[in-house]
């Protein structure tokens, strides 16, 4: 690993604390934005579930809850490793921080791989999104559930991919010493984002697989 690099405070801030607090508030505002973005999907889910209650119950049984459950566990562990990464960078242990970031990255990758297998299994039964849908089932409106399922989990997977890019970026920055106990704002902010992505999944899992 490279030497820690001294960071110059931007000219428009008076002190590092002010900069950190501004970044944190900005990140929370951005999180609020993310919540509203996903809330649109949750409302759509609620509306169509209200219109087709029995179909939704039937369709959720077609998903493999075991794979969903394993993925939930992986994401929760990845949130833990993310927290540990933030903790270690704050306490100036860059090696451990890097190890935890790497673990988070791989857990995210495993999540996506399992998700791909799940998608594949659905496609094999003709449960494609939208017009391509050719799956069989007890309800003629089954395509609506799978349309929502692929849209919601797809957009969530997109957020996981963005998170992985950000984590990879952090790994580089921890390694080259541009973040450290002096300045760990990026790690903390990506951490917030990562927890958000996990929390969304924690809502999605019961809604789509169990209810």
């Amino acid at each position, binding site marked *: 690993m490279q030497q820690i690099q001294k960071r110059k405070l931007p000219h*428009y801030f008076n002190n590092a604390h002010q900069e950190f607090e501004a970044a944190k508030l900005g990140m929370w505002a951005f999180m609020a934005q993310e919540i509203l973005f996903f809330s649109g999907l949750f409302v*759509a889910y609620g509306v169509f579930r209200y219109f087709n209650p029995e179909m939704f119950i039937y369709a959720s049984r077609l998903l493999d809850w075991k794979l969903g459950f394993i993925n939930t566990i992986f994401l929760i562990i990845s949130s833990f490793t993310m927290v540990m990464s933030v903790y270690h960078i704050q306490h100036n242990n860059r090696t451990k921080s890097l190890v935890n970031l790497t673990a988070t990255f791989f857990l995210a990758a495993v999540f996506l791989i399992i998700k791909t297998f799940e998608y594949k299994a659905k496609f094999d039964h003709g449960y494609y999104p939208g017009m391509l849908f050719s799956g069989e089932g007890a309800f003629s409106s089954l395509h*609506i559930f799978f349309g929502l399922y692929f*849209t919601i989990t797809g957009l969530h997977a997109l957020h996981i991919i963005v998170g992985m890019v950000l984590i990879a970026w952090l790994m580089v920055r921890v390694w080259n010493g541009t973040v450290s106990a002096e300045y760990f704002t990026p790690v903390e902010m990506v951490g917030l984002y990562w927890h958000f992505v996990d929390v969304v999944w924690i809502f999605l899992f019961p809604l789509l697989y169990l209810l």
Partner: protein
Amino acid sequence: MKNFITEKKGILSWLFTLDHKRIGIMYLVSIFAAFALGGFAALILRFELLSPDKILLTAKQYNQMFTLHGAVMVFLFIVPSIPATLGNFFLPLQLGANDVAFPRLNLASYHIYLLGALFCVASIILGSVDTGWTFYTPYSTSTDTAVIMMVTGVFILGFSSILTGVNFISTIHYLRAPGMTWFRMPLFVWSLYATSIIQVLATPVLAITLVLLMIERVWGIGIFDPAIGGDPVLFQHFFWFYSHPAVYIMILPAMGIMNEVVTTFCRKNIFGYAAIAYSSIAIAIISFLVWGHHLFTSESEVAATIFSFLTFLVAIPSGIKVFNWIATMYKGSIDLKAPFLYFLGFMFLFVIGGFTGIFLGALAIDIHLHDTYFVVAHFHYVMFGGTLYAFLSGMHYWWPKMFGRMYSEFMAKIAFWLIFIGFNMTFFVQFIMGSKGMPRRYYSYIEEFQIYHQISTVGSWLLGVGFIVMLVYLIQSLRSKEQAPDNPWGALTLEWTIPSPPQYHAFEKTPVVDKGPYEFGVEKP
């Protein structure tokens, strides 16, 4: 002495600058271009409506033209107009800060804006959209025009708006100069704060709506298109959950500028500072609860009644502001300079626009008036007579600070009267023909409406001339050699304490604030 304009040279030093002042100027140029495009579309539309028969456009081209006008004016011009230009430039300066909290994010938001604009313009070439700026389903999922291109553009523009909002919230919380308490902030800052909250919380709902619209159009997942099991009313709810708060994104910063102008040109402290500040926040909150008044005819009667009531509530904080401005003018030492003329124009037109909004919020009357020119007139009185007037007021007010040059006051007054008369001629008759039943967005009409349409079209020409006059004297002012004073209006807020135009580091010494922003009664002569 170098200022922020002469600090560095070359186009790249502008395009990749982190300076909020330069980003503000680039936004200003961009939204002028958008305004010219949207305005040009409007002039063509009005020209076509001179006669119920074809003059220039076919019916489909007419639909494409009003979509272009609406989408460009809403998403490319009026949403970013005040926050991204005057807000970007003056929010940090009014707080006594040297930049926004996240300058790189600020630049990114500008680049994102350009990218989004590119998509919108590309959609014109690839088959101009004919759905109207509201993109209602199922028409928008079935028309053969370039809906995806346009919607992608609007989706991208949304991120630009969100990032500006995030940036401003952090800036206002953490970059205030020592002594600048919340209640010593200029009211323009308060209004930008309320705007930012709406930008951050409402825009993502538009984003997800547009993503779902695209997915529906490409894959047909059955969410908005009734033919495949979708719910078109859900689209309307989603769309207006953003787009109603969005009109407050447009009007709140406009109201903010009015505070700066009315105090400076009446040389009086603002009447009811706290009431105005809180009413901005109240408008932001209520704005999220009224979207249903766009769906009076497609939702349940109970819901419509509740939304009607909530809609009336918005009138209260808006009224508080208007009364406070009038009270501020009372016994003031009024100076009828161009920015103040626009303030008066705003008061006159915004009140008409606001009251007709109450008509439309009343259930029974709305059933008669909805989808007529009455709505078009109401919307333009609020957006053009309100937001655009305030924007012009602010632009004239801060022009000497931004560029260090004075424009011709005489020419500015001529342009004001041309625009004022042209505007009322164009839109007041639309109230009349709307109440008589002329539907909006129609290509043709029955004979008895022709006289109204003709008056309206002639008015639009006056408007066009007014804006050309403005363009000419503004460009002239930039070419003149005469340096504008640092504080030509004798205003008291912090941006007037520094040179015109400001240096790259606007405040060499961080200012210390010990009083409110408009304490005219107590300043030394």
